[in-house]
């Protein structure tokens, strides 16, 4: 294995598995600062995870294996997604390949597990959240696949290492297809990380919860797994955004070196949107995402029209 692949693998596991909770932590921290509060420290998610890990889980009466295994399955799917997405144009093969379109399946697996657990607990609020999450996922998945298609067409492969290499440099400024894809991908990021205007991660009102709803019944290590999985989703989509849809350096070492800064900038951008934008009516979100899908479609058309 080459040195670059080794370094990329270290960043992938270190960043995606161990430091991923820092991403939502940073967003919360900066959001509080922007709103004039002192807010929690960026490492607050780690403290929560440690605390949850020491607590015992709660069994809901009448639930079975699906409810018990769902957090592990969702976290395993998120971890596999972390292994699938290389942090740069190189990365070790963890046995799961590096295919962009396989990512959609892994994200869907996590959603399936959590929603099935909501049915097992038969909790009305969990089911409300799950039903909304899955409804939005129809539009998220279509937009995600179309944006990935734009990136794949521009770089000529769906291998994410090749995609990162093929979109390197200031490509996004010169290629209208990639620019349209980037706007659409920004909406995917908002939806997958559960940020406003799609979802409000800070809500404590069960009726407005989307991603938090299905987690209501869980406690202890189960909840820790699910919170970590949410953080890992942040890592996956933000790394894709940074290394595909934003200008990035040509060369693995430069890409790896710039990644922390770009991720922090993206977290800051999320904090700014969270502060500026109010939550949308849940039934209007599909329109927003459909607009994103249309932009990505235009991106494909632009690429096809411009291709020799």
């Amino acid at each position, binding site marked *: 294995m080459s040195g670059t692949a080794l370094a990329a693998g270290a960043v992938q596991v270190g960043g995606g598995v161990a430091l991923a909770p820092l991403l939502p932590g940073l967003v919360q921290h900066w959001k509080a600062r922007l709103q004039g509060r002192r807010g929690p420290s960026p490492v607050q998610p780690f403290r929560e995870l440690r605390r949850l890990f020491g607590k*015992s*889980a*709660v*069994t*809901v*009466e009448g639930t*079975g*294996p699906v409810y018990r*295994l769902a957090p*592990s399955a969702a976290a*395993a799917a998120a971890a*596999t997604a972390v292994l699938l997405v290389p942090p740069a144009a190189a990365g070790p093969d*963890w*046995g*799961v*390949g*590096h*295919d962009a*379109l*396989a990512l*959609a*399946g892994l994200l*869907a697996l996590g959603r*399936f597990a959590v*929603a*099935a657990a*909501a*049915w*097992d607990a*038969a*909790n009305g609020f969990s089911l409300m959240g*799950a*039903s909304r999450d*899955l*409804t939005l*996922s*129809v539009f998220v*998945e*279509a937009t995600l*696949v*179309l944006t990935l*298609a734009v990136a794949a*067409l521009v770089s*000529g*492969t*769906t*291998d994410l*290492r*090749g995609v990162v290499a093929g979109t390197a440099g200031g490509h996004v400024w010169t290629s209208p297809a990639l620019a349209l894809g980037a706007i659409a991908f920004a909406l995917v990021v908002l939806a997958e990380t559960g940020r406003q205007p799609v979802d409000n991660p800070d809500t404590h009102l*069960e009726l407005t919860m989307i991603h938090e709803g299905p987690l*209501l019944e869980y406690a*202890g*290590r*189960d909840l820790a*797994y699910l919170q970590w999985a949410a953080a890992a989703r942040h890592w996956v989509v933000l790394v894709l955004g940074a290394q595909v849809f934003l200008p990035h350096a040509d060369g693995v070492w430069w890409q790896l070196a710039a990644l922390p800064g770009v991720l922090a900038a993206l977290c800051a951008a999320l904090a700014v949107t969270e502060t500026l934008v109010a939550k949308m009516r849940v039934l209007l979100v599909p329109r927003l995402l459909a607009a994103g899908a249309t932009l990505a*479609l235009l991106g*494909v*058309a632009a690429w*096809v*029209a411009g291709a020799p």
Partner: protein
Amino acid sequence: MTAAALAFGPGAIALGGILAALRRTFRAGLGLQAAGAALTGAAGLAVLAAGGSHGAGFTSELHPRLGVDALSGFFLGTLGLVAAPALVFAQRYLEPDARGRATAALSSPFLLAMAGVVCARDPVTFLAGWESMTLVPATIILVARGADRRSRQTVFTYLAVTHLGGAGTWVSVLLLAGAGGIGNSAAAGAGSGLQAAVVLAALAGMGTKAGVMPLHVWLPRAHPIAPAPVSALMSGVMIKVALYALVRVVVEWAGPPPLWLGVLVLAAGALSALGGVVYALFQHDLKRLLALHSIENVGIILLGIGACLVLRARGAETWAAFALGAALLHTLNHALFKALLFLGAGAFERAAGSLELDRLGGLLRRMPWTGGAFLVGAAAIAGLPPLNGFASEWLTLQALLRVPAYGGVREGVAGALALAALAATAALAVLCFVKVVGLVLLGPPRREAVAAAEEAPAPMRAATAFLALACVALGAAPGLLFGPLAGLAPWAGPAPARAGLQLPGTGSLPAGGIALVLAGLAAALVLLRGRRSAAPAPTWACGQLVEPALAWSSAGFTKPLRLVLELVLRPEREVAGREAGGVLQEVAYRGHVPHLIDERLYRPVARLSLAGAARARRLQSGSLGVYVAYLIGLVVTVLAAARLGLVG
């Protein structure tokens, strides 16, 4: 060896049919049929693996001939893999009373008719098999349901629609045979009018039989009312045989098609995929829901075939072959998980007495084997890794992505739209099957009969477990089949069979690796979690009492989507309140999502043809004088025409 199996397998199916008609040998007969189907399927897969062909070659002459080549072998394998477990299941599912025996006996000609279509090498055998493949299941439904009014009406719709549409099959096969094009792709002539006519007629005729929207109306009516093993055969094999015919005619015999035909197939595929899954979401009966999902999956298969046609027209032959391989792999995958789900539904119906989604619940605890297998099938049809549905959907997505990569602007946009449609379809299938799993398997039981449900007997468990294992195995090693299947394209060379999916220009899908990593990580996390758990607590409902009447229903879970798609679906709802003294006493609610293709397309046609028939009936007054007047009028008209030189 293979040739002997190909002779003995159908023989065993025929003998098993006779034995199943007798009370004493009922189970043995079904078992013999299952063994025959397994033998036929194994021989078919052997032909696929070895290549080459057995028996006669194709001919446009009207002389009955039978033979097997690799493509036929693959569909025989599909038939065996579905029919063997379905018939083992039927051993205990069907009672050895008159109806059960008749059903068991008729399953044998049904299987032989489907095998006949697949093995036919000439137009006569093909069309004979095709028609019996339609008529035998109609008979089974009538026999098994005791010919009540509803099933007679359904069977009539089924026969009427498949025969009207099925005329397309006759037209396309006979046109091809007339031009000598059976088994000869040069005869139709690329870009000729004949080629377009053959392909369009095949799309109408075989598309009707496969359940392609908007020709699908019979399918969600006929599949649910058959007995579960027959539903499994109809959804798992019969519509696949129609797809076999479509692949034969459109991909193999018609020659390189013009671009617009490929785009048309893509459009039909996208419509079927999205329409099937959206209407499935709003069903309240499990088997009807599963039948509509067959339409969705036929749509996904058509997307693969459409991508194959477009890519071939653009000259991207390697990827065209991959697209065909993706479509064929999804054909087998859908056969496996749909048979599994139909058999599971049959077991639930037997145990709980009903398949109304809102009146089941908690069956995973009562029936862990059948329920567990059903859960695997649901995850597979939802396209989740590491199961087989995911592998073939991934392949189809990759093939569709190559359409814009190789195409002009119009096909490129069509390909991208199809890509988005497939992604949305996969997400909708997740929504739908989370709902099914939740309402049927999870949560508290919603009726007393469901709470007392008992696990199915061993043969039924074995059948569902076998199909679930097949779904897992094909999910872990899809490449073993995908290689030979991609090699079936007449323009492609043989492809190597590997476990994973390594295609040029992709990040490759090491399906086995993904399965191992997912399973390993999940197992590690389960171990790490440990068994520590606090005392059980009731579910959180803001302190309210949790009442069974407040349980979530099928309609509730899909409500957000119904509201989002309101403009397209036009759902109907009626809320009526009864007031007494200014206080609301009672609220009656009724909601319904009408099937727009039925309402907007078929109802006007049916109304017009009925009105036309009523007009035409006035000619038949029954009075002798009127008939004499008709005759005189006819003679005068003919004479006048002859005088004017229009006839003769």
